[in-house]
C-alpha cells in the first residue's frame, strides 16, 4: 500500500455536519427578500390542444400575483438536455406548449405571495382542451402511426447504423436470439426539483439558484430562451439532494425565470413528488434484441443488436441515448463483428432523459441475459463464459480506437467469484432446490463497462484556479456540482495530498457561472477523472509557483527549493505557504495564483462484476437477496468509506430496478406518480452488500483513479435477474421481475424459454 496521507482513506464529507443538524439549506429552503412562490399546473390528458385558459377566478384569489400560460409566455423553443452552446439537438419544447403531449406536460403556473395561495389557485384555472389520439408505448406508435404528426419530423427517429469489424467465418457456430426489457424508471431523488430565479429590471441581471449539474449549459439555455446577454445570466449551483441524472436537464428553471422576468422579483418553485415523477425526466422504457453466433468453445464471433428507446413526449436527448448504447459495447467485452441499430420513438409518456449509466445499464441488461442463455446452451459456467469474451489489458475500445489501458474485468470476475464463493453457492443452491420446497435459490453474475469522460465522443475539457491566502490557506475555484456523494471532499483530499497540507487548509467551492471557470458539468462520470486530474495538475503548478517565489525571497535557485510536509524548504531554512503569499503580496506585489486548463486525452476501461445470491418465494413471487458482492476495477479509490457507500446505494437502486421499480400508464394515460405505487427498496428490504476493489495505478486520472458512480449501477439488475433465472431455471428478461410477473411465470408451468 502507498503512504498517502489522504488518498484511499476515509474522510467525512464536507457538509455532513449541516446535513445531520438540518442547518444546511437546499434550494427549497432558501428565502430571498421579496420572494414570490410558484405552483405549476400540469395537464391531465395525454395528448391535446389547449383551446382556452381562463384565469379570472385564480387571479381573484388573495395573494395571487399572476398566472402564466401558453397564451402569454414566450413561444421560443428549447431542448431541456442542452448542456453546451451550439450542441446539435432538436428543439421541440416550449415552456408552456399549446399542444400538450403527455399527462404531466406544463400548462400554466400561478405566481403568488405565499406557497399556500399559489397552490390554492391551481384548481381555479379553467383549461379547455381539444383531445387528440394518443399512445403511451413505442410499439403502438411504430405500428399504428398514430403520432406521425406529433412533430414536424414525426415521432420515430432512427440512429445511424453502426457496423464494426468484418463478419468472420461462422462455420460451426450456433445462432441465438434473446430479448430484454426495462420498464420506465424514476430517479426518485429525495429532494424534488426546486429553484429560485431572480431578476433585477434596473441592471438586467438574472440569477438562478438551483441544484443542477451544469451551470454553464443551463446559463446558455436560459439566456437564449429569454434573449438575455450571457454575461447577465448567472447560474449558481445549490446543495443537491440527489440527482442520478435528473438534475442535468432543465424543467423547473425556465418556468421560474419566466416568472421572475415577468414580475421583477425573486420567485421560487418546488416540484411536488408527482411532478418530480411525471414532469421531469425518467429512464426510458427499453426494448432490445440481441442475436449472436458463438463457437462451441464459447467465443462470440458476431453480434447483432436492435434497440428501441421510448423517448417519451419530447425527443430531447433520446437519439443520443440510443447511440450511447452502442458506445459501450466494447468497454467490457470484445467481438470481431458487431452491427447495431436502434431507434428513439416519441410517445405520450413522461420524457426520457439522463439517468445514472444512461444507455449502459440497458446494453448490459441485454448482453448479460444473452450470455447467461449462451452459457446454459453450451453447458458452461456463466463466469467462465464471460472470461472467454472480455477485453484484456491494453486492448482498445474498438468503436473509438482509444486504449482501454489497464482494464481489469478479468481480475474482477476471477477474484470476485473466489471471494463470493460462487461455485460453492451454486452447488448449495442446487442441493437446496432439489428438496422441492416453497423457496428456490440461485446465483447470478452481472458485468459491465463504462467511461470516465466524453473523450473521444465529443469535446471534454475544463479548468481550475487556485489562490494562496495571506495565511497560507488555499482557495480553489473550479466548477464542481456535488450531487451529494462527496465530490467537494474528494477534491479537497486530492489537492491537500498534492500540496502536502492538511485538508482543512483547502477550500473548494462549487459552480457559479459568473465566478468559477468554464466547465461542461458534472455528468458522464467525468468529474473525478477529468476535473480531478485538472485539480491535481493545477496544484502541481501552484507548487512550482510557491517554489519560485521562495527561491526569490531566499535568493536561492528554484532547483534547490522543494515542498515537503506543507513546508517550503530552501537549504536548511523552512518557509510556510503564508511566508510565500506574504512575500508575493508585499514585495512582488502579486497574488500567488495559478490557472490551469486541460483537454481530456484518455479514457481507460472501467469495469465491474457483481455477484448475487437470491431466494425466490414461489408462493408470493417475492425475491430476497441473500448475499451480494460488488467487485470494481476502479484504478484508485479516493475516499474509501463514501465510495463503498455510493456503490451500496447503487446496488439498492439496481435491486429496485430489477425487482419492483416501474412507471406504467393507467387507462387514462397517466403514469405511476406516487411513492406508494413506485416501490424502491426501503431499509428492511435493502440487501447487505459487500464491496471490493481491484486497485492498480491507472493512467490519465488523478492518482490513478477511474470513475465509479454510474458504472456501479450497471451490473446490478443483470446479476439479480441472472440469479432469479438460475433459481427458477427460467429465462425471464422483462424487467422488473415483480412478484406478479414471477407468479405468472410459475403459473404457466414455468415456461418462458
Amino acid at each position, binding site marked *: 500500500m502507498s503512504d498517502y496521507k489522504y488518498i484511499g482513506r476515509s474522510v467525512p464529507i464536507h457538509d455532513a455536519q449541516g446535513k445531520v443538524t438540518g442547518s444546511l439549506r437546499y434550494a427549497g429552503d432558501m*428565502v430571498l427578500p421579496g420572494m414570490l412562490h410558484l405552483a405549476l399546473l400540469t395537464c391531465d390528458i395525454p395528448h391535446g390542444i389547449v383551446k382556452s385558459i381562463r384565469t379570472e377566478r385564480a387571479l381573484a384569489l388573495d395573494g395571487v400575483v399572476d398566472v402564466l400560460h401558453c397564451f402569454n409566455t414566450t413561444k421560443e423553443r428549447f431542448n431541456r438536455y442542452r448542456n453546451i452552446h451550439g450542441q446539435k439537438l432538436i428543439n421541440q419544447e416550449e415552456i408552456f406548449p399549446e399542444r400538450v403531449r403527455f399527462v404531466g406536460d406544463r400548462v400554466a403556473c400561478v405566481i403568488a405571495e405565499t406557497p399556500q395561495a399559489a397552490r390554492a389557485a391551481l384548481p381555479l384555472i379553467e383549461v379547455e382542451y381539444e383531445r387528440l389520439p394518443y399512445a403511451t408505448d413505442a410499439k403502438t406508435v411504430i405500428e399504428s402511426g398514430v403520432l406521425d404528426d406529433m412533430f414536424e419530423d414525426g415521432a420515430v427517429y432512427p440512429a445511424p447504423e453502426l457496423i464494426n469489424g468484418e463478419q468472420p467465418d461462422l462455420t460451426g457456430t450456433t445462432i441465438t436470439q434473446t430479448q430484454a426489457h426495462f420498464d420506465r424508471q424514476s430517479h426518485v431523488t*429525495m429532494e424534488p426539483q426546486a429553484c429560485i430565479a431572480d431578476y433585477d429590471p434596473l441592471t438586467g441581471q438574472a440569477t438562478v439558484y438551483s441544484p443542477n449539474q451544469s451551470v454553464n449549459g443551463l446559463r446558455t439555455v436560459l439566456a437564449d430562451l429569454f434573449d438575455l446577454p450571457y454575461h447577465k445570466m448567472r447560474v449558481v449551483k445549490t446543495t443537491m439532494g440527489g440527482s442520478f441524472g435528473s438534475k442535468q436537464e432543465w424543467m423547473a428553471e425556465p418556468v421560474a425565470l419566466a416568472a421572475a422576468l415577468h414580475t421583477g422579483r425573486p420567485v421560487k418553485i418546488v416540484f411536488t413528488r408527482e411532478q418530480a415523477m411525471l414532469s421531469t425526466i425518467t429512464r426510458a422504457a427499453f426494448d432490445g434484441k440481441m442475436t449472436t453466433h458463438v463457437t462451441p468453445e464459447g467465443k462470440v464471433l458476431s453480434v447483432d443488436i436492435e434497440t428501441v428507446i421510448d423517448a417519451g413526449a419530447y425527443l430531447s436527448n433520446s437519439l443520443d441515448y440510443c447511440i450511447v448504447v452502442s458506445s459501450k459495447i466494447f468497454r467490457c467485452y470484445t467481438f470481431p463483428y458487431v452491427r447495431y441499430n436502434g431507434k428513439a420513438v416519441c410517445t405520450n409518456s413522461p420524457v426520457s432523459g439522463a439517468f445514472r449509466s444512461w444507455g449502459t445499464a440497458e446494453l448490459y441488461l441485454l448482453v448479460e441475459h444473452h450470455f447467461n442463455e449462451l452459457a446454459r446452451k453450451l453447458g458452461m459456467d456463466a463466469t467462465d463464459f464471460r472470461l472467454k469474451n472480455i477485453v484484456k489489458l491494453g486492448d482498445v475500445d474498438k468503436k473509438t480506437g482509444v486504449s482501454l489501458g489497464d482494464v481489469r474485468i478479468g481480475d474482477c470476475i476471477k477474484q470476485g467469484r473466489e471471494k463470493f464463493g460462487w461455485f460453492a453457492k451454486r452447488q448449495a443452491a442446487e442441493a437446496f432446490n432439489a428438496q422441492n420446497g416453497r423457496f428456490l435459490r440461485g446465483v447470478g453474475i452481472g458485468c459491465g463497462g463504462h467511461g470516465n469522460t466524453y473523450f473521444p465522443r465529443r469535446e471534454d475539457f475544463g479548468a481550475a484556479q487556485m489562490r494562496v491566502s495571506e495565511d497560507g490557506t488555499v482557495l480553489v475555484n473550479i466548477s464542481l456540482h456535488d450531487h451529494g456523494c462527496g465530490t467537494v471532499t474528494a477534491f479537497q483530499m486530492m489537492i491537500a495530498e498534492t500540496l502536502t497540507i492538511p485538508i482543512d487548509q483547502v477550500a473548494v467551492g462549487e459552480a457559479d457561472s459568473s465566478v468559477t471557470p468554464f466547465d461542461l458539468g458534472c455528468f458522464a462520470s467525468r468529474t473525478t477523472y477529468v476535473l480531478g486530474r485538472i485539480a491535481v495538475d493545477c496544484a502541481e503548478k501552484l507548487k512550482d509557483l510557491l517554489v519560485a517565489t521562495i527561491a526569490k525571497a531566499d535568493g536561492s535557485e528554484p532547483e534547490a527549493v522543494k515542498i515537503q510536509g506543507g513546508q517550503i524548504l530552501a537549504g536548511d531554512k523552512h518557509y510556510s505557504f503564508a511566508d510565500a503569499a506574504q512575500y508575493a503580496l508585499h514585495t512582488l506585489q502579486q497574488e500567488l495564483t495559478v490557472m490551469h486548463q486541460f483537454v481530456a486525452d484518455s479514457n481507460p476501461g472501467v469495469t465491474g462484476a457483481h455477484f448475487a445470491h437470491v431466494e425466490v418465494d414461489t408462493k408470493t413471487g417475492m425475491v430476497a437477496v441473500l448475499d451480494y458482492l460488488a467487485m470494481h476495477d476502479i484504478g484508485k479509490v479516493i475516499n474509501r468509506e463514501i465510495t463503498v*457507500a455510493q456503490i451500496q446505494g447503487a446496488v439498492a437502486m439496481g435491486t429496485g430496478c430489477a425487482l419492483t421499480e416501474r412507471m406504467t400508464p393507467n387507462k387514462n394515460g397517466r403514469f405511476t406518480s406516487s*411513492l406508494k405505487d413506485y416501490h424502491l427498496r426501503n431499509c428492511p428490504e435493502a440487501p447487505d452488500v459487500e464491496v471490493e476493489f481491484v486497485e492498480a495505478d491507472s493512467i490519465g486520472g488523478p492518482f490513478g483513479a477511474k470513475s465509479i458512480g454510474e458504472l456501479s449501477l450497471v451490473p446490478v439488475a443483470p446479476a439479480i435477474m441472472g440469479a432469479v433465472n438460475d433459481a427458477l431455471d427460467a429465462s425471464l428478461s422483462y424487467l422488473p421481475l415483480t412478484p406478479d410477473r414471477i407468479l405468472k411465470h410459475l403459473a404457466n408451468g414455468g415456461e418462458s424459454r
Partner: protein
Amino acid sequence: MLTIQLTINGAAHRCEVSPNTTLLELIRDDMHLTGTKRGCDQGHCGACTVLLDGMPVNACLMLAVMADGKQVETIEAAAPGTKKHALQQALIEEGAVQCGFCIPGIVLSATALLEERPQASRPEIREALSGNLCRCTGYSRIIAAVEKAQERGRTNG
C-alpha cells in the same frame, strides 16, 4: 383560523392555523424550520419525520391542530450530550450521509428508537427506519451508525 398552543423544540408557541394546515406547513413554511424536509407530502418517504411527544410521525400527514397541546421536536432542537447527538456524530463518522435530504428524518426516527429500545437488534433497527426512504446510501452505513451510537450509549452509561 384556529389558535393552537404547542411546544416546538422546548419553546412554547401560540399559532394561528387554518383547519387544513399540515404540521409540516406550520413547521417549514410558517416557523421556517427548514431542517424538516418535504419529500412527497403524502406520507411515503419519511423526510418530514418529527417527534410528537417523543413519537416519530410524518408531519405531512398530520394537521397542525392535532399538535395542539403537544411537544414537537424537530431536527433543529439542540442536542448536546443526548442520544440524538451521538447518532449525528456516528452518521458523520460512518460515512452514512450523502445528499442528506433523508437524514433529518432518519435522525429523528432512529433517536426515537434509541430512546425506547437502546438495545434494539439489527432487524429492529431496519424496521424502525422502514418509513424513511434513502436513495443514495443503500442504508448499510446508516445502520452501522445507529449501532455505533448504541455502542457508545452502552459504554457511556
